[in-house]
């Protein structure tokens, strides 16, 4: 079917120009020291420039010249490397996803970067940087039509019925149509994107800006002088006069700045956000300067996580993430599928992604959790006070914080809930950073029931269902349920897991006759 594709391809020639441009920042950094102390003479600068011309430019050309790729009937073959030659063969049936990424520069030149992602590796295994946009779409279509043929060849029992219906007939015709039939799940208007930025409040960007300033180490007085031509002087005078007020103003300024930067970051990231379902995959596309498009096979989704915070929650907003494994992902196994939506919409989308029964009322963990947390926090505070008291005896007054600790403990308990259905374990955790995990039991990996020394004295246990790609920092652990409840919960979860996986076995022709 695809013998026509078998000819060798090179990258788009514009790649050369782009790579030279992309290498310029490196040159600038190399030259920076010479620029900052020009009295050292221009010799070092000259040497660096010559080295760049003699070494970097030929390498850029050779890398381009040595790069070949082609697609055979079964494989994507990439030959690359200047000194070490690398021949990479990626079987088409192992390709999970073909991502087309367009950063600003390639977009201006009508090219794109193609990333081929396979299972079992966290990084993209084949990167074509850069090819023309038509070529990128062509590659993706070849891989897609191959997967469709595969599905059809494997027979209706094995293939997902949906993808068999939609993609089984006429793959050649379908491959010519640029857009396959898509069931749109969610789209974000510009207003929502901006609003999502309003709720995204992170001091990270401020820290980045300050660390950038640290790098250049500008003298604030001189800088102000230079910008304002001394018109700034009264302000500086006022700052020196009242340091407290200016500190408060600086904090407010930083907060406003990070607010603004949050809006800008979200605008760049989620501009024209679209989420759709296409056969047995969900796809998403968004971005202003860098347009990213990618898809996640439904089979690879291990869990769904709804995230929100008190402010967003009060205004009725939340976001939805999926937990995956073996895909190229930037944020440790969690990918945003809905950056910002009404809580009702988020639930609806979650249901159309995973198709599960509505989750009944959530259950609180044992109220003993409040006392346990309160005791823990109080002991921690007392230990802290005892230590600091050595230097600041007046810190003893901090014991008046203790009632607030009880409030914190109560809130922790109030927002820690769980629910079990035939197919799912759902867990809510967190007061500020609120997460709701929805873990399909058919995807569970290992079941844990644990009992710490202190839990044992109060007759409590924790229950945890591990899943592939779960975050190692925040986990859906059900902490502090009564011993009998914990035991029946563990047993119920495991027996439902067995039922769910057995019905999966019956749905497909056999558990292990696929390659």
């Amino acid at each position, binding site marked *: 079917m695809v013998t026509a594709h078998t000819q060798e391809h090179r990258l788009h020639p514009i790649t050369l120009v782009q790579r030279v441009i992309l290498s310029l920042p490196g040159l600038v950094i190399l030259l920076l020291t010479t620029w900052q102390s020009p009295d050292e003479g221009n010799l070092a600068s000259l040497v660096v420039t010559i080295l760049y011309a003699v070494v970097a430019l030929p390498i850029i050309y050779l890398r381009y010249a040595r790069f070949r790729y082609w697609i055979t009937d079964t494989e994507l073959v990439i030959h690359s490397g200047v000194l070490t030659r690398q021949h990479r063969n990626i079987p088409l049936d192992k390709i999970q996803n073909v991502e087309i990424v367009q950063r600003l520069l390639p977009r201006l030149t009508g090219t794109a970067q193609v990333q081929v992602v396979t*299972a079992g590796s966290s990084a993209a295994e084949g990167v074509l940087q850069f090819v023309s946009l038509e070529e990128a779409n062509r590659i993706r279509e070849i891989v897609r039509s191959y997967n469709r043929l595969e599905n059809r060849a494997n027979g209706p029992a094995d293939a997902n019925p949906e993808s068999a219906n939609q993609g089984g007939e006429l793959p050649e015709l379908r491959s010519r149509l640029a857009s396959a039939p898509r069931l749109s799940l969610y789209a974000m208007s510009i207003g929502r994107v901006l609003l999502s930025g309003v709720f995204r409040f992170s001091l990270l960007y401020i820290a980045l800006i300050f660390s950038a300033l640290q790098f250049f180490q500008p003298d604030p007085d001189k800088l102000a002088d230079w910008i304002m031509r001394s018109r700034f002087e009264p302000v500086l005078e006022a700052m020196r006069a009242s340091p407290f007020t200016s500190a408060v103003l600086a904090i407010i300024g930083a907060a406003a700045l990070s607010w603004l930067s949050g809006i800008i970051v979200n605008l760049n990231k989620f501009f024209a956000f679209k989420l759709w379902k296409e056969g047995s995959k969900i796809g998403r596309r968004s971005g202003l300067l860098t347009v990213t498009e990618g898809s996640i096979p439904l089979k*690879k989704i*291990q869990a769904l996580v709804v995230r929100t915070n008190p402010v967003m929650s009060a205004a009725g907003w939340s976001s939805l993430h999926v937990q995956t*494994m*073996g895909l190229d992902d930037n944020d440790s*196994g969690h990918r945003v599928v809905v950056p910002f939506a009404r809580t009702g919409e988020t639930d609806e989308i979650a249901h159309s992604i995973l198709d599960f029964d509505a989750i009944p009322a959530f259950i609180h963990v044992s109220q003993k959790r409040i006392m346990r947390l309160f005791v823990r926090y109080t002991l921690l505070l007392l230990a802290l006070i005892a230590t600091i008291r050595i230097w600041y005896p007046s810190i003893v007054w901090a014991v008046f914080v203790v009632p607030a600790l009880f409030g914190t403990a109560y809130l922790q308990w109030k927002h820690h809930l769980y629910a079990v259905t035939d197919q799912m374990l759902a867990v809510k955790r967190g007061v500020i950073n609120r997460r709701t995990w929805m873990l399909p039991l058919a995807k*569970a*990996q*290992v*079941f*844990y*029931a*644990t*009992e*710490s*020394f202190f839990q*044992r004295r109060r007759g409590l246990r924790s229950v*945890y269902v*591990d*899943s*592939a*790609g*779960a*975050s*190692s920092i925040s*986990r859906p652990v059900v902490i502090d349920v009564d*011993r*009998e409840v*914990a*035991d*029946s919960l*563990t*047993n*119920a979860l*495991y027996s439902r*897991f*067995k039922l769910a*996986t057995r019905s999966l076995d019956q749905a497909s022709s056999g*558990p*292990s006759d*696929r*390659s």
Partner: protein
Amino acid sequence: MSEPIFPNPSEPLDLNAQLQSSADEADPTSPPALLPLSPAIKKVWTIKSALAVAVITLGVGVFDLARFFTTSSRTLPIGLPTIGILTVGSVLAYFVPRLRYRVWRYRLGHEELVIQRGLINRIHTVVPLRRIQHLDVSQDIVEREFELGKLIVHTAGTRSSDVVLPGLDVIEANRLRDLMKDYILEDAV
């Protein structure tokens, strides 16, 4: 339905009763009973703990000796830290492995491997056999001396992607591995 997952939840610290309960009354709902590890693991753990105590004692001993040659403050008599560490360490090195041995239990069921462990924090783990990614049997130099082996079960989970079952006779470890090997699915995750 609510079968207790630790042998005797009412008195979890009563180790003798626990030992008896698992030996006497096998749980009728789950055919294979929870098994203890090979008793030789007590010796292995004791040797390893003794080595650790020896290293720590040596370090404290050097510190003590250094104090002997300096005129700095001597709030503690020379030799007391060394003797103290040695005594406490020896007691722990003797008793802790025996206590640990008593709480360790495992069971290979039809569809799952169940492991129970932990002296202070007790952990009950159920590994469904269909979730196994791969299996290892390993032996370190002390275990080799006692013909013991560890069975390491790797899953795709992230909390502890490998579940370790120590203190098995090497023959038993290999037998378990071969039994479980057949359950490894080709397209996991």
